[in-house]
């Protein structure tokens, strides 16, 4: 969690499921921006800054190791790290995080923003990941009353067949990828 205050994330998750708290660990890479460190607790681990890939790597490894196998790991978003370290170091960090996830048989969702990194970076990410899901938003400039059209597609999946066409993504329906 790198782009929102920890209280906001906790509230959002716990609104859905009160029991989730016991199985939830948040790595807070946001609070240090305001220079404020929240109350230390078992479910929140603070990263003091995002300039240091080894710190991030140890924190992630430690958390994954505590959660055990088949845990779900969400990194939102990796693009924030690129504000503080160069792309080469970021790719090395990504490699270590992915290796740790594979070693522990964990599920991992790593979010990247489109259009702010180099094409080479995206190619390296595509090479590294087991599954790539792309999201896009289409706007109709002619009709201002038309809602935004959101869609997604599976760009690549290593372990089976998939259909690569775009699917509509609406907020009213639950979509499982």
């Amino acid at each position, binding site marked *: 969690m790198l782009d929102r205050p920890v209280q906001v994330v906790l509230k959002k998750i716990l609104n859905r499921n009160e029991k989730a708290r016991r199985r939830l660990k948040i790595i807070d890479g946001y609070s240090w921006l305001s220079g404020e460190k929240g109350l230390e607790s078992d479910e929140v681990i603070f990263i003091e800054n995002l300039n240091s*890939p*080894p*710190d991030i*790597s*140890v*924190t992630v490894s430690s958390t994954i190791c505590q959660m055990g196998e088949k845990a779900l790991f969400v990194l939102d978003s990796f693009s924030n790290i690129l504000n503080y370290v160069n792309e080469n170091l970021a790719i090395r960090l990504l490699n*270590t995080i992915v290796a740790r996830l594979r070693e522990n048989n964990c599920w991992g969702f790593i979010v990247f923003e489109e259009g702010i990194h180099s094409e080479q970076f995206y190619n390296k990410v595509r090479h590294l990941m087991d599954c790539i899901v792309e999201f896009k938003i289409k706007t109709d400039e002619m009709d201002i009353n038309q809602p935004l059209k959101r869609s997604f597609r599976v760009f690549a999946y290593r372990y089976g067949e998939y259909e690569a066409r775009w699917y509509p993504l609406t907020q009213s329906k639950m979509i499982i990828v």
Partner: protein
Amino acid sequence: MVSFNSIKDDYCLSLNPIKLPSQKKVVIVGTFIFAILVSILYFVLQPTNSYLVLSNIVVVAISGCATLAAYLIIRKYRWNIHNSFSKCWLFFFLGALFWSLGELSWAIYVLGFGIEVPYPSIGDVFWLIGYAPFFMAFLGYFRMFGLPFASKKKLVVIGGIMFLSSIMMKQFLLYPILALEDEPLVMLFNLAYPIGDFLLIAVAIGSLVVFFGQKIGKPFIYLASSVFIINAIADTLFSFLTTTGEYIYGSYLTTLNDLLFVWGYFALFLGFYIHLKEF
């Protein structure tokens, strides 16, 4: 209806809670104060018979605390031998356990059997076995988190330090020890300690150079300093004192030597404790 002010107050409260010193700060400051008190007490009681009891109990207690902190970490990481991170901490725990067993057996020899300087003894076997897991732990940590991010400049610095320390060890430790004519078993232990210390120094310095100035570096400053600075000096001084027959209770050098080991365990405990609380 919820007013805007109450929402604002809740939000401000969540961002600015009343700050009390955290448990971590209390333990760290408490450990430093306790270390100072123990050091003073060592020198005050040095000429009395109580020194023998105090020094043996204190060192066993502190090494036990370090082992307990390492145990809590490995319990947190689920004792998973197939996970490289968990394995690293398992090695740290084993290292601390063997060293504390070494301290315990020394204390049993001294307080139970009345042998003033049990060297060499079964305690030395525990201490020497302890070097292997510590070496593996540091090496594992360095390979996992240091090597992927280490710059060429840092690697050159590490290589340079290791080269210099190997020359210094050969000149100032190995040659003088080999020049002494002692029993083969004593010679073996006299040589094993500096070699073990050098191997730990190599990996500990490597980790310290890479992790220095980072969050992960804080526990490593304590762990590495306990291993490569304090322990190496204490081992060398101990080898020197026992070889020259000057390891006598009541002398300042013996007290200083005992204190160095105690400070090493304090640092080891702090390294483990900080990691336990931070991650």
